[in-house]
């Protein structure tokens, strides 16, 4: 099997043993990117020269015992809203087209300290606002399973890169489903960690109280290994927390016997696609067979998660994105006479339509006379939703449901109707409102061959249980890379293998 078809952990193992050189791995990955980027457009920036130079440095470091993590030498990608010193970090916006931060995000420092090789910055919805990666100023990313379809979003470039074999693993960010939903659409695995688990320092903020960085990879083990590298308290992020307990990587085994899993009744009504429903319920059946106690459950107030989410996220985003005013960095509209013109023209020209839309919603819901009815109410609804989860977790170790109501839609099908696009976040946003961890992993494909995502939601700091259950389920499935042509195995067919 080709090198680029390995899992990240397996590659790390072979690099450690000396069987594969770091440069060899990086070159193979860069070759794959060269071969496929035109087709999928997963990256905004590929760090070819930097990655090759880094490969030699890492190889030396591994030999000298400086890099000992399981992913030392493994090429990874990061979403382009994560700052990397001196490297263009755009948030897929014209506003930051040429922005080069003079600092690296905490997670980038951690990836570097662990000896991974960062290959490039992946495409996304502009400022992470969107569910399709179509709002990117740099053009859409295509779903490697079907290039007429979206990869999901906002971390669509990261999920597509992992699915297409353009990265072994990637970091995404998840504010309302932006790791889980593209992972589902691209048939890969992604974890949105408990709020505070991963430092947000250097993550360009969308909605500060909801944002969380997490891993996207080909399987649960890779995700766990990557999460292990990036988690931890950071004194530069006041909301990051100290976590106790064993490594995530050691949480893989043990199975689900005795675990109590609830299936929120409300998650299986309304606009849920029948094939998605069947696949998810079948997955629940598998877990039951493996020894879990699975039953239907109640989950209060989740119907109000989307309204509350869009109020809170837009309000915070409106404030967070006000700093893009043409003064300190980023785009400034040319030929402006006065200061007000600089502000208005810069922001109107520098932001795309979806961002502008959310800026307006954000300004409105906080404006004088509307605060209580919108923002105040949303924060109360948020509290009710959290309490609803608390009650559910008194009975269950985790909740199970779909990640998204459908499989990946066609390119261009979502943009005309923003509300419809927002409603697609129905299964993901409540998790962010309550700060919970959740994992999305493939649980089948629909008739068109498109991947379906299974979501497991854990109690605060319950990542280890999620990893154990997801791993248990994953082992029963054939793990597939995307359809023929996406991953070349040298035989002209789809690469397939059993899960490790």
């Amino acid at each position, binding site marked *: 099997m080709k090198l680029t078809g390995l899992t990240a952990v397996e590659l790390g193992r072979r690099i450690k043993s000396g069987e594969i050189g770091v440069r060899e791995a990086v070159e193979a990955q860069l070759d794959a990117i060269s071969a496929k980027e035109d087709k999928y457009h997963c990256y905004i920036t590929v760090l070819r020269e930097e990655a090759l130079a880094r490969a030699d440095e890492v190889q030396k470091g591994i030999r000298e015992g400086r890099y000992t993590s399981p992913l030392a030498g493994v090429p990874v990608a990061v979403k382009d*809203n*994560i*700052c990397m010193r001196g490297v263009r*970090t755009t*948030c897929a916006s014209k506003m*930051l087209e040429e*922005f080069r*931060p*003079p*600092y690296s*995000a905490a997670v980038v420092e951690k990836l570097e300290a662990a000896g991974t090789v960062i290959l490039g910055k992946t495409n996304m919805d502009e400022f992470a606002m969107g569910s399709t990666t179509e709002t990117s100023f740099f053009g859409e990313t295509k779903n490697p399973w079907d290039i007429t379809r979206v990869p999901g979003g906002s971390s669509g470039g990261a999920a597509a890169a992992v699915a297409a074999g353009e990265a072994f693993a990637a970091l995404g960010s998840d504010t309302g489903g932006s790791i889980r939903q593209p992972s589902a659409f691209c048939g890969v695995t992604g974890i949105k960690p408990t709020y505070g688990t991963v430092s*947000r*320092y*250097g*993550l*360009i*903020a969308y*909605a*500060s*109280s909801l944002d969380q960085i997490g891993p996207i990879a080909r399987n649960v083990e890779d995700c766990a290994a990557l999460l292990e590298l990036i988690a931890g308290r950071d*004194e*530069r*992020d*006041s*909301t990051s927390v100290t976590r106790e307990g064993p490594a995530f990587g050691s949480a893989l085994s043990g199975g689900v016997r005795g675990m109590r899993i609830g299936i929120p009744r409300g998650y299986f009504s309304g606009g849920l696609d029948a094939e998605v429903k069947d696949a998810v319920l079948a997955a629940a059946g598998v877990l039951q067979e493996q020894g879990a106690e699975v039953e239907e459950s109640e989950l209060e107030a989740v119907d109000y998660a989307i309204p509350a989410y869009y109020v809170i996220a837009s*309000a*915070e985003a*409106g*404030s967070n994105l*006000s*700093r893009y*005013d043409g*003064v*300190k*960095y980023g785009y400034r509209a040319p030929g402006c006479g006065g*200061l*007000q013109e600089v*502000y208005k023209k810069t922001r109107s020209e520098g932001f795309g339509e979806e961002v502008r839309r959310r800026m307006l919603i954000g*300004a409105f819901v*906080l*404006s*004088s006379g509307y*605060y209580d009815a919108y*923002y105040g109410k949303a*924060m109360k609804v948020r509290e009710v939703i959290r309490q609803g989860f608390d009650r559910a977790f008194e009975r269950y170790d985790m909740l199970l449901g779909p990640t998204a109501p459908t499989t990946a839609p066609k390119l261009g099908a979502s943009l005309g109707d923003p509300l419809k696009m927002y409603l697609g976040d129905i299964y993901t946003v409540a998790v962010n409102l309550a700060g919970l961890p959740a994992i999305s992993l493939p649980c089948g494909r629909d008739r068109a061959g498109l991947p379906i995502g299974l979501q497991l939601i854990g109690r605060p700091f319950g990542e280890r249980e999620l990893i154990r259950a997801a791993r248990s389920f994953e082992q029963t499935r054939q793990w597939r890379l995307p359809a023929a042509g996406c991953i070349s195995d040298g035989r002209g067919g789809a690469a397939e293998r059993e899960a490790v």
Partner: protein
Amino acid sequence: MKNYETVIGLEVHVELATKTKIFCGCTTQFGGPPNTHCCPVCTGMPGTLPVLNRRVVEFAVAAGLATGCEITGNCRFDRKNYFYPDLPKAYQISQLYLPICRNGGIEIETEQGAKRIGIHEIHMEEDAGKLVHDPQEDCTLVDYNRCGVPLIEIVSDPDMRSAGEAVAYLEKLRLILQYLGVSDCRMQEGSLRADINLSVREAGSTQLGTRTEMKNMNSFRAIARAVEGERKRQIEVLESGGRIVQETRRWDDGRNTSFAMRSKEEAQDYRYFPEPDLVPVVISEDWLREIKAREPELRDAKMLRYEKEYGIPAYDAAILTGSKRLADIFEETAALCGNPKEASNWLMVEALRLLREAGQEPEELALEPAKLAALIRLVEAGTVNRTTAKEVFEKIFREQVDPEVYIKENGLAMVQDDGLLRETVLRVIDANPQSAADFLGGKEKALGFLVGQTMKVLRGKGNPERVNALLREALGQRTAES
């Protein structure tokens, strides 16, 4: 004309005397080339996050405790959103919903006796940057060095009724904050700035009139004049049948009038909401006790102690403690020279005179206690006389000279050689026979002339008492001889 009452409330911004900014590890040092005391956090670079400086909380609590406030056990920060080039994030991290201190007050002295001025709240926030107009290119230059310097805003109740009360309140507040060490309160450097909210109403009315706000007043004198000027303006408007518009006005101290600031293009709608990047601050009873225990001696206590412990008259004690700087210099000098009365005299008389001449405030006094103490010791030891010492003091005051070195280098030490003194005295008597005769004839005054002549010959370096004694002795001998 009707009888009007003036209603004044003050919003006082005080820069805290921390080493670093409120949310990052940048220095708060005043000055420096533009954009050198900043980092990605205080310039609002994308992806950066604030982390609260513990000392800011402790200073704010200390200020609250010293002004009788209730301390909010669980306080939070909020964002105040508006666009301006001096505000790099386009929001100021401040406190609206749960400020750290509330419901306090301080007492001021008025002509009618003591009066309590209520403090509505104290909240923590970050300062903005500095905008400088570049006349050559007709543009504005932005410097973020001050951006993120910690402030507390102390909001009074509308309890003041005159310029005198407003100034008395500010002076009292300034002393409290200076004694606490939470701020140096230098108005010239902008570390204490006051916004005046002022309205007038008919005497006896209980309803508040429409108020105007005058921002960033930076001297007591300007504040007093601004209150007077705005009061007059509002009364004139009302008397001529007009209405007061709620607005922000700028006080022009040169022209002694205020004028409306051009209203910002957009309505002021700050869209406050809780700051998601910072966690709540919980102030436990233990922490409160700890902060209270660290509270230094405040002015009133110090004044009493000066009277009791040092025997300083009440009037002098009040003056000395009326400036934290003066009090600090006094105490250190007294400790070094062991002579509090002398230390007090030098400061009360010479230092204040020189300050007055220089048009400076006691707060600006740059006098090293060690040098003053050395001078006092030199006078006590008879090395220099008082007249010379005053000269030396001036040199210390103006040029920070070392008194011992200065006296030595300029040969100002008194002549201690009794032989030389005797010789000089005899020569002076010989040169002034008439005065000698006058003295001997009973004219005491003539002795003064001879002392003066002797000192002149000695170029001021004689100990006048010793010279006096030697003259009497020599003249006495003349009598005996004749």
